[in-house]
């Protein structure tokens, strides 16, 4: 089972040459002006784990309630607890257990595999546990950038940075789970440097 290895209390694995733990995010970005170049890799905000967990658990609860209602309905209609009923019930039970485990244990793993870096060339994002991806968006290719926040994210003070490029497959690149202030600073930096680049040409 993959989630056993991913206890949230474990030390984060170092994936990147200069991985930073969450404490340094606030320090670095708030201390230095957003326009300075910083080639270190940062984790997401720690609250990302909580937000992902809560939304996972909400999803789990919805599935749980509907599967319980479904099973009760099935029982009332057929009035039968034969082999098929037991098989269906246990399959649904397993699905629910999987969803609960996923909601609790998966977010920290995902969190640990997220890294981002914004240097003079552009924004680089590392993500993915099994299916790993690294993407680099050069500053001058940023068409525009948004920061969005759902209600749950807002209560935890995090936001999602979305970068739009003129590309096709990567027409928009998401970086979720940033501290909202950092996300805003990063957005301003990306957009401003992108535009400055355009004007200087």
């Amino acid at each position: 089972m993959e989630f056993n290895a991913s206890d949230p209390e474990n030390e984060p694995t170092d994936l990147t040459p200069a991985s930073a733990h969450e404490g340094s995010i606030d320090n670095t970005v708030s201390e230095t002006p957003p326009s300075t170049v910083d080639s270190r890799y940062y984790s997401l905000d720690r609250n990302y784990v909580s937000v992902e967990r809560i939304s996972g658990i909400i999803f789990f609860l919805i599935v749980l309630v509907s599967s319980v209602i479904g099973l009760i309905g099935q029982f009332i209609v057929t009035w039968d607890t034969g082999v098929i009923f037991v098989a269906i019930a246990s399959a649904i039970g397993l699905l629910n257990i999987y969803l609960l485990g996923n909601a609790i244990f998966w977010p920290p793993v995902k969190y640990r595999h997220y890294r981002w870096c914004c240097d003079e060339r552009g924004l680089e994002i590392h993500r993915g546990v099994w299916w790993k991806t690294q993407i680099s968006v050069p500053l001058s290719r940023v068409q525009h950038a948004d920061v969005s926040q759902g209600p749950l994210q807002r209560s935890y003070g995090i936001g999602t940075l979305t970068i739009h490029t003129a590309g096709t497959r990567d027409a928009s690149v998401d970086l979720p789970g940033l501290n909202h202030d950092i996300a805003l600073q990063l957005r301003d930096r990306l957009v401003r440097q992108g535009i400055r680049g355009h004007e200087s040409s």
Partner: protein
Amino acid sequence: MNHPENIPSDTGSEGASLQSDAAASLTTDPVANTHNVDAAPEVLIPIKTTWLHPTSLFFDLISHSRELIVPIAIAVFGATTGNSTSLFFGLAIFIPAFLSSAFRYFTLRYKIDNGELVVKKGLIFRRIRTVPIHRIQNVDLLQNPLHRLFRVAEVKIETASGTEPEAVLRVLSLKKFNELREQIFLREPTTNSAIPLPASAAPFQPQRTVPEITPGQSLVAIPTSWLIKAGIASNRGLLFLGMATGAWWQFKLERFINLEDVKETLPSLDGTLRNTLLIIALAIAILALLRVASVVWFILRFHGYQLQLCGEDLRISCGLFTKITATVPRNRIQFISIHRPLFLQWMGLASIRIETAGGGGMSGQDKSNSRRWFVPVLAEQGVADLIQQLRTGIEWQEASMDWKPLSQDIGRRLRRGAIVRSVVLAGIGQFFSPPWGWVAGIVALPLLLLWAAKKSRALRYARTEQFVVFRSGVLTPKISLTFWDKVQTVSIAQTPFDKRWKMKTLQIDTAAAGPAEHAIRVRYLDPAFAKHEFKFISGEAAKYEPDFG
């Protein structure tokens, strides 16, 4: 994925004024236009408000009848089967179409004023589109025999932004078109491109008399023999077959053919022999017919194909009945792709496709086709020369390309894949037709292995100082290249399978949206090498500004 809203809109400061079709700017406010005055040459004589040619009414209806053709056909064929209500349906579709065409004709007008092309349409909901002339990239002309009869043409005006033409003027008289074209191309040659003009290219010289024949360096002219070869090599005819079978079933065409008559014309032979012969003959006939249809399609579309370089613009003109002219500024080329389908390869031919930002997107078949089939067919020895003309200062030597090695294990991995596939196939075969179904897997194995070997040999990746090159494809080898300033994002990906084989995939995304049908996605790379290329390309890309013209 194609997000039309993300196709590069102009990122500069003038972006906002590109499409101001808001109802608020009903009058062309001279103050709002002042920022374009310096860019537009003073020589422009304003074109007064002009309406479309009176035949527009008719041609607009015709162009919409393409959309109406199915209901009309259903109505007509329905009528022949004795269903008269379908005629009423036909009329019910036709009359609103006629009214909307009339409405468009009476309300659409354009003018050139103060360095801007202003197109107004609508009566209650007025739309005013203002396009600064110096931003206009393409003035495409479409002329079919009917158009020629009335000496008119359909004109499409494109800028770098979006996938849709900025304005479609259907139809203008040739005189009006020439006036318009003269006005637009009187602009100074694009000065914002840092690329110097090659000495060989004729400098852009606007001519006042007949702007259609601006002097240019002819790059490619396609003789009919090539088109015939390309048609034979192509499967375009399948399109006709599909349409024909569809029509056959839809309208029950067999009721017009008396099968007994057909039988009598055939020579009388023994039953089984006759049937086999008949089937073979039919298959050959269909194949031949398909090829003929392909040839016809190619000739109709590309007859008299000419590619010219006029200053920084590439001009295409072709077509037997429906003439198409298109203009592609060189610096807008995002992506160049050379396709060599097996048949074409045998005849020593190749085809080249290009991708541009904006205008050449997936939407609008008519429009994108001129770029999709940039050079539909070309002699192999001309490819290198042409590629070098598509961008100043690029060197294209395919033979001496410094192909980088892929992972050593690629052969092993692909062979393993082939074996797994044949085992699965054997399993499926056994499941559906026991007891000998598993033989299918054994039979398929050598083919799959051969395919794997071919595939690993076809995959190639290279990088020069100016561009990246990616080659792939077994039956249709495709070589694509894109330039640092056209790279939008770079990424590397690793699946769990990749991880097992210690491999990574390098992907390069550009604004090119589709016609080349070849994305740069280099699989089976050594992880360290992939990482190095990732860093290098993103570094190079960051040095250049994207240039959408």
